[in-house]
């Protein structure tokens, strides 16, 4: 094989790999975008129950109910709208009533959310940034 041919093969193979990887990347990218909603958002928009989303707000005071098998139900509120959440599994340390929370899961209908995961996101102020934004939007944000 002449060097020229070898180089041609090399370039062709590289370009092929690049195209395939770009294609796969964009596919995986599209499938894995997880959009964030506030309780008011989900009440207004119809959200595909098959689509994984994040729902964020405050844990409504007095709404936490624990059942058997680590089952838990609580409500997420942004001050205007409440959404009931069911979850089974491990809770982060920072999960408390009146505190910010982000849940990942599926909207069963406009008022019920089945959480797959409760996120332990935290920054210096212990408030998930999405929650801060959601609260600012609904006018209940009291921080800076």
């Amino acid at each position, binding site marked *: 094989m002449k060097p020229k041919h070898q180089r041609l093969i090399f370039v062709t193979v590289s370009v092929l790999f690049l195209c395939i990887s770009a294609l796969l990347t964009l596919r995986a*990218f599209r499938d*894995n975008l997880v959009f964030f909603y506030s309780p008011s958002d989900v009440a207004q928009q119809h959200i595909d129950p098959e689509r994984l989303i994040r729902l964020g707000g405050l844990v409504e005071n007095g709404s936490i109910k624990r059942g058997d098998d680590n089952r838990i139900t609580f409500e997420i509120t942004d001050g205007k709208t409440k959404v009931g959440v069911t979850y089974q599994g491990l809770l*982060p340390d920072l999960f408390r009533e009146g505190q910010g929370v982000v849940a990942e899961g599926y909207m069963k209908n406009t008022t019920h959310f089945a959480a797959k995961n409760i996120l332990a996101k935290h920054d210096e102020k212990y408030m998930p940034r999405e929650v801060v934004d959601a609260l600012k939007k609904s006018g209940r944000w009291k921080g800076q």
Partner: protein
Amino acid sequence: MLPEFGLFFLILALLVASLQASYLMPAAQKFVAPCLPAAAWLQSLLITLAFATLMILRLESDFSVINVIQHSNLTLPTLYKIAGTWGNHEGSMLLWVWVLAVFGLALSRSEHSSTIQTAIAVQALLCVGFLLFILCTSNPFARIFPPMADGEALNPLLQDIGLAMHPPLLYLGYVGFSIVFSLAVAALLQGNMKRGWAELVHPWILAAWSALTIGIGLGSWWAYRVLGWGGFWFWDPVENASLLPWLSGTALLHSNYVLRKRGMLKSWVILLSIITFGLSLLGTFLTRSGVLISVHSFASDPARGIFILGYITVVLGGALLLFALRAGQMESQEKMLPLSREGMIVINNLFLLTACATVLLGTLYPMIMQLTSGTKLTVGAPYFNAIALPLLAIPLIFAGLAPFMPWQHAPLRQALRQAKPAMLAALAAMLLVLAVAKIKIVLGMLGMGLSMWLIVASLRWLKQRADKHLSVFLGHFGAAVVVAGITGMGLWQQEFLRPMKIGDSTDVAGYHAVYTKESTVITPNYHGWRDEFSVSKNGKEVAQLSPEYRIYDIAKSPGSVAAVDYGFTRDIYIAIAPSGTEGIVAVRLYYNPMIGFIWTGCLLMAIGGIMAIFKLKL
């Protein structure tokens, strides 16, 4: 007075750095050149003094200084008063510029040539930018009047030895690439690459890469122990920010090897040097501008973010422009064949950079979307797992083969013959997984097969080498060990949540855990509970684990300290939290197979890198 001295040192340092940087102006060259070594010393001394000042202010709890008020308090243990110096924005920027200056000094200690002098001046220019940033937007010595009686809390999550050591190492890595960058820009400014340039950057690339490797490993270890989720990598933007320069740095490390041995890839190495430092700056921007915490807080107080962004634009834009103008002059005429060691390295470089680009896309996209359209979204971990992991697996296949291939032209058949034992070992590992694993068999076979392939290939390569050059072996072997760890942990981790009261027991992957004792813990800094668990296997006690649940008094925030029984093949990991019912505690138990391999592998890679700097042999 002390805080003013600190500020004064920084201003003096800025002047000295400006003097050094003026070497870049042809008219000033003659006057400045003799001062360069002394200026490098002075520069490092001044910034060291400023850094020491901040540390003393924290130790003395001078609550007239805003930085001390915000990130320290009287009850904080001394270790974290010291380590907290770089645990906050202003202090960490000071650490950044300190490393920048000290590395500049180290560079000025090597034999003086025009390349070195130019590089020192470029380094000083980087320093000027950073000092301006600190003085204009992040003054660590800013005061308020009247002074406070006590400070606020240091984020409890940061009160850990892992995180005390993590930023300095990460910065050694980030800033280490600044020297590589400065030398690359010096070569571009001179219009050609002097003989010996590759040898000159070689130790710097290795040092930065090794520090970054350990830094990432430590950060991951910290997350594992402190976040209480039993995981080691979350594809969080902060983590990605450190992974990006590591990926391009790995590519750079290998390309520079080709440059040293064969004199090829000159402009490619220069470009990679620029990109790698650019990604280091990006990492600093992401973690330090507040853009990750909230795009909105970034937009409402944009001074810091805009400054760093401007800095990146000037540094990276300037360097790339220079590259575009000058790179054409330095290409070598040598031909390269894909079936050769250098060919393999180039292919690997492409894969590493593609992986780097996909991680970059996933990291920046949510921020860009929110800034431009206001849509809030995240890119899920499955994206990174599905894309970046396969892209990184391919270079690892080549990494097993390439060392068997000679330079210039290599018959593939011969290399494959040499790699035969590795192939057989990989096959054996796959069959073993097939026989043993109950879930995720296919991925497990691929991961373990890949790991075993690289392990045996590296061992065989080491055996063949007469000079027993350990560094390459350790690098590749370490990577293989990490792959094994990620495969084991990623696929076969088991987690359980059990509400337990004293005397209850539970079974986890063949281990039997009994909740034996509860006690309270009270320290000046926090109070909480410590629960004891006895873990046994087949009736024999393996470990006594005592996880804690703490409430940090000043921050009024909870934190759990997991208890881990470290083992060669597995960790048993227990974390506790209140269950909401009196007398019952929510216990999280994890069976983490092979997780220790991940840190061990990182350490091995870093040791390999350090050995290569000193050309150590067995």
